[in-house]
């Protein structure tokens, strides 16, 4: 019966780490709502997550918009349905690609940096030092980052949406020869508020996921440099997977049955 042993061990480990993550999440959320609030740190993190992510998110968005226009043109030309390109680009960007790609890019940029920073603070006893200086590490380190992530991701995604649609416009007008006025009209007429809003709500959830994973893995890292490296990898991988699975759940909630 020995072959059952590893299965049981893996299963128990899985339950234990799920429970740990659940407790961490609960504690993190409750600290987001209880004073004292560290506004200085929240603002710093918002700048780090929002402003400094703009170049990489903007580049991702503009190329995605351009590729979308080009791909859907070659595809739709087969059905003589080129007119739908504007529609396809704007819906794909606002509903899906804007939030998901921005979320993934920020998971790589911010989630990794957060877990490395907090992980290093853990292994160099800086987190213990916080406690001895009457400062709760969950309040000082975790809550401001999570709040900043929840607040900033929608803003970043809104800008990514605009840049992405603009990328599609560039290709459609200057390469594929669409009439600029018609293209913009098609873009605007088919767009409904829910398309953008659903994307921004998704973005907020992704901001929560990225910062939570960065903080959780950093906070629980152990064993020096190697431990911090593992924590960083885990933060990015788990955030990416959670973003994609959460994306499905949210899409289902928003659009199923419509």
């Amino acid at each position: 019966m020995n072959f059952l042993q590893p299965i049981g061990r893996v299963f128990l480990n899985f339950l234990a780490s799920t429970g740990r993550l659940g407790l961490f999440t609960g504690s993190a959320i409750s600290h987001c709502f209880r004073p004292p609030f560290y506004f200085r740190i929240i603002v710093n993190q918002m700048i780090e997550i929002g402003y400094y992510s703009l170049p990489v998110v903007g580049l991702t968005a503009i190329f995605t918009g351009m590729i979308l226009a080009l791909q859907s043109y070659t595809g739709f030309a087969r059905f003589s349905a080129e007119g739908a390109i504007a529609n396809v680009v704007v819906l794909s960007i606002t509903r899906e690609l804007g939030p998901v790609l921005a979320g993934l890019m920020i998971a790589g940029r911010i989630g990794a940096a957060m877990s490395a920073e907090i992980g290093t603070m853990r292994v160099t006893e800086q987190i213990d030092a916080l406690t001895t200086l009457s400062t709760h590490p969950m309040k000082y380190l975790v809550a401001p980052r999570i709040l900043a992530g929840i607040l900033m991701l929608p803003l970043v995604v809104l800008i990514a949406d605009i840049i992405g649609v603009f990328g599609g416009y560039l290709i459609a007008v200057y390469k594929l020869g669409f009439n600029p006025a018609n293209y913009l009209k098609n873009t605007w007429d088919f767009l409904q508020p829910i398309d953008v809003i659903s994307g921004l709500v998704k973005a907020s959830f992704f901001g929560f996921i990225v910062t939570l994973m960065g903080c959780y893995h950093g906070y629980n890292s152990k064993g020096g440099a190697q431990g911090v490296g593992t924590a960083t990898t885990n933060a990015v991988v788990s955030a990416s997977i959670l973003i994609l699975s959460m994306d499905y759940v949210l899409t289902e909630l928003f659009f199923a049955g419509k």
Partner: protein
Amino acid sequence: MNNSEPKIRLRGVHKAFGAKTVLDGVELDVNKGESVVIIGGSGSGKSVTLKCILGLLEADSGSIEVDGEDMARASDKDRERINTKIGMLFQSAALFDSLPVWENVAFGLLAQKKVSRKEARDIAVAKLAQVGLSSGVAGLSPAELSGGMQKRVGLARAIAINPEIIFFDEPTTGLDPIMADVINNLIVKTTQDVGATALTITHDMVSARKIANRIAMLYKGKIIWFGPTDEIEQSNNPYVDQFIHGRAEGPIKMGLRA
């Protein structure tokens, strides 16, 4: 609260990690205003003892009282309040590398929100002067300092809130003998200046003799000897004799733990 009551009182403290017992009924009294040093080899449970007193680790059983208040049963809020009476110098100094030196020193003051940032900076510069650092250091980042200077900044941070109790975790480890002596002198001087009770863990006998009023020897999770510093030579305890003279042969077997 009367004066004869010990500042720190440990009774029957047990702590195990999995199957490995680290603390096996530690009993210790530290009186107000005295300096106690706990000596012991690596893995004897010194750090764990300290972390249990600070509330960074939870003891499995037994009581730990600071000023008559049980740390184990204290809520987060109470613990934060008790921590305002405590200063701690970490082995690796554990300075916050995201903050300049003065903000490190003033961190506890700023956390208690009793002073403005301007006043906090002035106090930080004064505390730095107390440990022999010029005001030019205040604006530097901790990464720009040498190991000895980092220890001094850590000491300044520990005394910045005028604590009633200061803990020192291996204060001389990793320093050259001269810098170690400088730090020892500073520890003696600063604890007297602020009138604090001091508890130090170390395996450096030179340091222990210099700092301590009383020395306790920890071995296999128990205090096996506790007495005034000048009586340690006549302890008639083979374990203590072996340790203070640093002999490889004797009742303590290193590296043979099961």
